[in-house]
């Protein structure tokens, strides 16, 4: 089954972006992915609620794509949640617009994976830090997928890790749009990045 992806991209300093921007551009090349650069569309943070809700309704998969800022999303994504996911639309009485849709975080973190451990200097795992988003998806009746993340993003390009990551990203998006992605298996994982190819079937 074909699925339409709504990719909400939030990066407040794109002229400095080394990883997210290439990822975003790569996503644009894939049919069935609607790419929204939130900071471009709402440079004044004044989000058009109606337009965003209409977009949500016409897509099956919602992806937040962002660099991790202070263990959370950049401000505009929070603003987007606060305004767009209204009572009566996304949750609460009659709020079933997002029921059954998939939700995915595609993010980059500056620290290494080792840092995001109980022993590491960040003390919490990435999936733990993303729990507010997970609960957001749950409250809206969406299927929450484990994050597609790149650690050590500040050195990824220099260390030649970028191409591999972009390739994996494109394969994932393509598989999702073409209905070749195993959601049941995916939901059980802690991260999508490592075993991505196990979740994708070659043919439909």
């Amino acid at each position, binding site marked *: 089954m074909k699925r339409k992806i709504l990719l909400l991209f939030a990066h407040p300093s794109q002229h400095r972006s080394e990883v997210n921007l290439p990822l975003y551009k790569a996503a644009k090349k894939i049919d069935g992915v609607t790419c929204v650069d939130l900071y471009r569309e709402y440079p004044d943070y004044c989000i*058009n609620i109606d337009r965003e809700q209409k977009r949500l309704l016409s897509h099956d998969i919602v992806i937040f794509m962002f660099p991790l800022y202070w263990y959370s999303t950049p401000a505009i994504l929070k603003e987007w949640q606060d305004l767009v996911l209204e*009572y009566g639309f996304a949750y609460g009485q009659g709020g079933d617009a997002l029921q059954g849709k998939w939700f995915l975080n595609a993010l980059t973190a500056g620290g290494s994976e080792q840092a995001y451990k109980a022993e590491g200097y960040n003390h919490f795992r990435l999936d733990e830090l993303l729990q507010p988003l997970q609960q957001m998806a749950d409250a809206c009746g969406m299927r929450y997928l484990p994050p597609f993340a790149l650690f050590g993003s500040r050195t990824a390009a220099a260390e030649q890790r970028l191409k591999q990551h972009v390739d994996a990203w494109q394969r994932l998006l393509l598989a999702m749009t073409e209905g070749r992605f195993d959601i049941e298996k995916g939901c059980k994982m802690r991260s999508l990045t490592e075993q991505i190819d196990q979740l994708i079937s070659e043919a439909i």
Partner: protein
Amino acid sequence: MTAYLGQAFVYLVAAVIMVPLAKRFGLGSVLGYLVAGVVIGPLTGLVGAETETLQHVAEFGVVIMLFLVGLELQPQMLWQMRSKLIGLGGMQVAGSALLISGTALLFSVDWRMAVAIGLIFALSSTAIVLQSHGEKGWSHTEGGRSSFSVLLFQDIAVIPILAFLPFLAMPEPDVVADLVHGGAEMAGTAGEHHADDSLADLPPMIYGLAVIGAISIVIIVGQFLSTPLFRFVAKSGLREVFTATALALVVGISALMSMVGLSPALGTFLAGVVLANSEFRHELESNIEPFKGLLLGLFFITVGAGISFTVLVDNLGFLIGVTVAVIFAKALVLYLLSIVFKVRGSDRWILTLSLAQAGEFGFVLLAFSLQINVLTAEMVELLAMVVALSMFLTPLLFILLEKVLMPKMEKATNEQQEEDVIDEKGQVIIAGVGRFGQIVNRLLLANGVSTTVLDHEAQRVDLLRQICIKSYFGDATRLELLHTAGIDEASLLVVAIDDRERAIHLVQEVKRNYPNLTVLARAFDRGDEYQLEHAGADIVVKETYHSALYMGGEALKALGYHPFQAENLKQAFNQVELENHPELRADWISTKHEKGISASYKELFIKLDGALVQAMKKDRSDTHSHEERGWTPPPAGYDDLLEAQQADDTDGTARSGQ
């Protein structure tokens, strides 16, 4: 009583009819008053006998005008003007007097008379010049300021001239005895003939002290007593009492000044300067202004009414000859002085032609000269005619200046400077760098974007160059110039020229020839915005919209709205404007040929305002509704609902587990 009322009615009706007519034909109010005077005086004979008496009253308008001028001038400004005041003013009076006297001598006029005539004609009409400059907005130009310096000097010069004229008299014993006395008496511009009031018969020492004392009183009252007095009066809340106080001040100073033999106009001017920094300055201005206008108008009417057709017709050639000669001589002196004092361009012509007439002081001095036997009665009658005629011609000179010389000058200064060779081509071309384009330019430059700046005002380009902003002189509406400015390679064109029609035309032309170039245009208002968009501009910004929106937000905040709420309301407003913009524009464009605003546009506009009210309300609503948008918590009781649901789910799970 009836006679007075009748005359007053005639004067007022004449002014009411003639002045708006004159203004409509672009002739200025002064000419309107003068013609009104001619119509009711010599032409129809409705008034006449009382003209001279009225003139004395009306001259009080000049006194009030100088008070108002003084209010505009802070002491430090006056100090800055000192070199012009004394240099330019002094040389104007001396030069004009010499030239006119010399010419009179050539026509074998007695030398004493020649000198007197020269001095009398050297003075110009403060009333006409300041009034006209104010109307035409020239008061703050270089030419206007220079003219003012000269006029101010002339007002001061009247006093020594009055003192000097008696020495030109044929030596008859009784006249000599009267010298000082008469001089002081006539010193009042209003020409009040109350010798008894004068202190001038006092011994020189005491008289000097009296003069110093009077000036001191003006300064001390103005500086220290006026503010508490005005406060006291203002507290009463009675507007007319404030007006009375202001008038009392002016009248009182005039009386004081004429008492010690100084010019009341000069005295009130001084008082004005002293009060220029007062907090009551604007209040004073607005209270006194109408009196000035009416009295000056009356004065001009009396000049017109005072023209005697019999004298005029009998001596037509002579009068016209002398008048033209006087105007020419004064203009020549002023023109030469403008070169010496480096007054350039159109300012030079403003100075030259503004002050070329003889002034109202001329009437006073002529009467005085007759009284002290310097001039004969016949001469005074003719010369007074010359003064009146030259005043009559001044508005015409202004028209010549405004309609013929100034446009030519502007063209000349622009043409003198050849269109610049543009050596650097910028990424962005900015046409017009006035108050709007300038800011755009600065933001771009600050970000390292190269710009090519064009403006058709040579002065502005000069100014920009002085502050190191590279700019070029040229008419951006000419496509060839845009071509040399590099429009073929440019990414953007910013149109910020002041002429709306030309801006629209420019956008059209550019879009026709370079359809791929992004054109940004500044609009003055809604209609201009629609037209520019219709002409093909890609981005149009209404120059006042965003700053007005900003101020609206500030107003909401000042009213106690939370700043964030104010911001949201502004954004909601803007959103509704944007949403309705295409519909309004389409309607406006389709009904553009109609005169005024079309009915459908009106309807749309009312609809827009309705939508705005709705949009504002949405945010203010207290109840939780689907319409309400933004940062609304779930409704009260939602929590219980969730818990109940969860309990159901757990039950369900438990049961299914069984």
